């Protein structure tokens, strides 16, 4: 714990500093746009990591929760004229109830049954969104109203005056996304460092050990499953308002796979690792455009090689390498990750 502190305490301020300085290095609005989206997706993945990295359960349907949040916000604000925050909360509640209903019977079972159940649920939700065009706009997608906070509209296309300064809507959105990411990390770390988080990590480390000291493992797995689903739903809502247009692809199986890949690539049970995973996976399509027809092959190859040579994920492997270069006393613990 004591040795964990040095890694934990500056983590959040460092992330905050990076997010604060980042706009200075971004060349144009397109870069800012990508950064905003990465922050929103990274926050989703931080939530998913609670389930996968700490709970040891795999969800192959998290995009469905993301998509439900996105569509709930889009439909409730667009078709029914709600304001953004109640719509967002309504979506989150819906997702929480669904995750709870699904998780309760499944998480009592041993093994990777949650992955199958979430896969099934995720694809069904994607199919429903695709088919019920009267409500969702079908495969061609749905336009989403801008975010409204306290009666004010936050559109990336407008300009706002903030403390006497002229600020673009895009920059405000970036700030909002950065704050959301910081909040997501803060909450996730609080949870990990609490008795609940310890119980969860114990479930991953030795489920039997956790049970004999009185940890109701299925209860905590369910709790963390619901939390991670709500994370996805809330970020999905913000994402929908931000991009202004959503299609069923946000809820698709491919998107679910993308999310889980970010977790594993960046480093399971490493909050900053999975953020790195999100950054890389979101940037890859932009970086690989020059490969044209070879893009898909390159993507698969990079994914495969990273996982073969860094099975613990990018950040844990890198930080281990750094530690090896600078040997410290023998009892140095692995810092924050397994």
């Amino acid at each position, binding site marked *: 714990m004591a040795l964990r502190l040095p890694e934990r305490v500056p983590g959040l301020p460092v992330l905050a500093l990076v997010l604060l300085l980042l706009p200075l290095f971004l060349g144009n609005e397109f870069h800012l746009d990508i950064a905003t989206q990465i922050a929103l997706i990274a926050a989703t993945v931080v939530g998913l990591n609670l389930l*996968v990295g700490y709970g040891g359960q*795999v969800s192959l349907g998290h995009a469905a929760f993301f998509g439900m949040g996105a569509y709930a916000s889009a439909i409730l604000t667009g078709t029914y004229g709600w304001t953004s925050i109640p719509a967002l909360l309504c979506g989150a509640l819906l997702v929480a109830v669904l995750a709870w209903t*699904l998780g309760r*019977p*499944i998480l009592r*079972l*041993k093994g*990777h*049954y949650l*992955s*199958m*159940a979430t*896969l*099934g*649920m995720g*694809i*069904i939700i994607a*199919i*429903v969104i695709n*088919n019920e065009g009267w409500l969702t706009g079908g495969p061609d997608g749905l336009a989403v109203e801008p975010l409204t906070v306290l009666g004010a509209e936050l559109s990336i296309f407008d300009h706002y005056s903030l403390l006497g300064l002229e600020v673009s809507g895009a920059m405000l959105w970036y700030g909002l996304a950065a704050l959301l990411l910081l909040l997501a990390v803060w909450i996730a770390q609080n949870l990990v460092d609490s008795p609940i988080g310890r119980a969860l990590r114990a479930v991953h480390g030795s489920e*039997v050990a956790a049970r004999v000291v009185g940890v109701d493992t299925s209860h905590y797995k369910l709790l963390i499953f619901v939390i991670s689903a709500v994370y996805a739903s809330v970020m999905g809502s913000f994402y929908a308002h931000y991009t202004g247009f959503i299609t069923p692809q946000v809820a698709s*199986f491919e998107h679910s*796979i993308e999310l*889980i*890949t970010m977790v*594993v*690539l960046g480093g*399971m049970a490493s909050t900053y690792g999975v953020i790195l995973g999100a950054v890389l996976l979101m940037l890859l399509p932009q970086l690989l455009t020059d490969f044209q*027809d*070879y*893009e*898909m*092959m*390159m*993507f*698969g*190859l*990079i*994914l*495969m*090689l990273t*996982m*073969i*040579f860094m*099975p*613990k994920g990018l950040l844990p492997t890198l930080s281990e390498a750094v530690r090896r270069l600078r040997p410290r006393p023998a009892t140095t613990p692995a810092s924050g990750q397994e």
Partner: protein
Amino acid sequence: MFAEFLQYLFSGVTIGATYALVALGFTLVYNASHVINFAQGEFLMIGGMSTVSLLAMGVPLPLAIAMAVALAAVLGVALHKLAIAPARKADVITLIIITIGASIFLRGLAQIIWGKEFHAMPSFSATESVNVLGAVMYTQSLWVLAVAGVLVLLLALFFTRTLMGKAILATSMNPGAARLMGIRTQFVLMLAFMLAAVLGAMAGIMVAPVTLTAYDIGIMLGLKGFVAAAIGGMGSGVGAVVGGLLLGIAEAMTAGYISSDYKDAVAFLLILVILFFMPRGLFGARVAERV
């Protein structure tokens, strides 16, 4: 009315037999390593696509099939040797992501070699369809069923009658004990990947004349095969076959009698129903937990 039902049944059984073969591939690898091999569907694509291009080069059909299956087998071994074996100490989730990477890689490679277009393969028999009690059946469906039946039979014999087959079974039940008994688990794992690749390729070749084939056909067929394996109870051979057939028939019946919009949802709804009410699948083994 009966002819209508029969028509749906033919349609369901044909695609169901394909699912069953894919599911068997999933089961083999899952038993040997607990890895859900998401690259399984790509072997269908490789089988189908290479047969098509070999045929186009003028290779006679039986030889083309043999060559395509051999290619898939080699790729199956390569997948194990190059991607799974080096990371064997990693978390199961990591291994699953590796297979996803492999699947994207193979699809990307296929797209470069064969292009993005769909290809047709001629039926194996000269007559394309026969009439049975008022319903029509593709002759190719008979091929699919016959080949699937033979493969399942061979596999069953392999596992019950040969030493190698028993070694695989032993490894799947208790890798540690199997290693102590001198079974090389890595070799067994390689064999499982190879057999899974062969099954996938055969399935891909047999259905190509019915379904057409392209570089990305493996995604959906692979996923459905996985669902079939899960319905049957991940890890059960009989379950995989029954799960596949059940899924195929359920889809055809849904499209025929209920709603074609939600035909694809049936597979995934089945998974949920089975997990809720029969968590170990139809034929899943009851495994005592070891402490």
